[in-house]
């Protein structure tokens, strides 16, 4: 009965056609019992935030390999704040240099996973850090 299921939006912002990583994460989340809304490729930050709000997700997990992470990820967080959805956790993964991670975290990205991270680690992080809305 009344029990929250974790809902996650998995998507890829911007001009980046490499979706293997996003699909692996989506599948790992499914196997962990989460409901995953997969929005696919080439999403604008606006589309991602609108979808996250309409779907009432707890977490937005973005995969990004294009190098535009310093622009796109903070943009998503900003639009969330503008639309009164700053409580939705934003997480990212992809080819992101270590040096950029502190700046991204300062911009409100809760966690950044880089290549080589196991899906168990990522699912574990979600379980430890995401409490579904009451």
């Amino acid at each position, binding site marked *: 009965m009344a029990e929250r299921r974790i809902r996650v939006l998995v998507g890829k912002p911007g001009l980046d056609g490499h979706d293997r990583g996003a699909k692996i994460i*989506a599948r790992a989340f499914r196997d962990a019992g989460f409901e995953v809304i997969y929005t*696919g490729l080439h*999403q604008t930050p606006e589309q991602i935030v609108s979808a996250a709000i309409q*779907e009432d997700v707890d977490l937005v997990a973005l995969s990004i390999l294009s190098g535009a992470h310093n622009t796109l990820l903070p943009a998503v967080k900003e639009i969330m704040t503008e639309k009164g959805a700053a409580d939705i956790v934003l997480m990212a993964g992809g080819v992101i240099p270590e040096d950029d991670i502190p700046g991204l975290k300062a911009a409100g990205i809760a966690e950044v996973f880089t290549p080589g991270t196991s899906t168990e680690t990522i699912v574990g992080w979600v379980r430890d850090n995401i409490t579904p*809305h009451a």
Partner: protein
Amino acid sequence: MTLAERVLDGDIRAAARLMRDIDDRFKSAIEELKTLYPHTGNAYIIGITGPPGAGKSTLVDQIVSAYRKKDLLVGVVAIDPTSPFSGGAILGDRIRMNRHADDAGVFIRSLATRGALGGLSRSTTDVVNVMDAMGMDVIVIETVGVGQDEVDIVSTAHTTVVVMVPGLGDDIQAIKAGILEIGDVFVVNKADRDGAERTARELTTMLEMKHPDADGWAPRVLQTEGARGVGIEELVQEFDAHHIYLKESGALQRLIEERNAKLFADTLREELFETVFGAIKGNGKYDEIVAGMRDKSMDPYSAVQEVMAGRAFS
């Protein structure tokens, strides 16, 4: 303000949260739905069903565009399956339609089946009611990719659309029972493919075998190419024609009443089960029954009769 009041006030986040409360079976959602109920009944509801890969999501995307051109507000409920093993789900219908995400006149919600078998999720009707109360003019429900028998959409939508593609089998498939009996409109999608004409012809022949009612609706077979938007205008015209038919023939009122009756029966069934089951689990009767079946001093049929007769739940 309650969630329901915020929904009526046009608050998108409140609507999204209420849909989640409904899906997660929160008791509080019932109170909110009570408030919204008087504000429902205005939307035109279209159900899209058909086998996996027929192109349903792409067609929905095009239908949304067509209605937006007419300046109508559109809600979409898209249903995908829950994994029976993990309870998780990948809801991927948005991939085809997310270009509408930041259009304020469109609200798309993905639902997982969570064990329901009829092609919908059990919260579908309530989620549709929330969209209706939000003021959506048209609500499109996309079912799970169905096989032959998942026909719950009929009791939920005003117009049921069955989407087929060329090459799914011979004409005997088309006269079996099931989803081919439920369509008000039939679509052969991916009509640029070989065999589309033949599939359309076979479907038409099958539909003609049915004796038409005197003033009844005769379903037609349309051809579309969802990915290129071909045939969408004709499809939406057919929806309009069916909607007018429903209103003029009185069938719409009948559908609405059947839908209300079903919602009542479903809610009653669920409440009764939860009440009775919760009570006998709480007072030890359930453990007694399980123990009784173990040593064969009790059988499940007598146990149910006993619970009902003894009002062991009240």
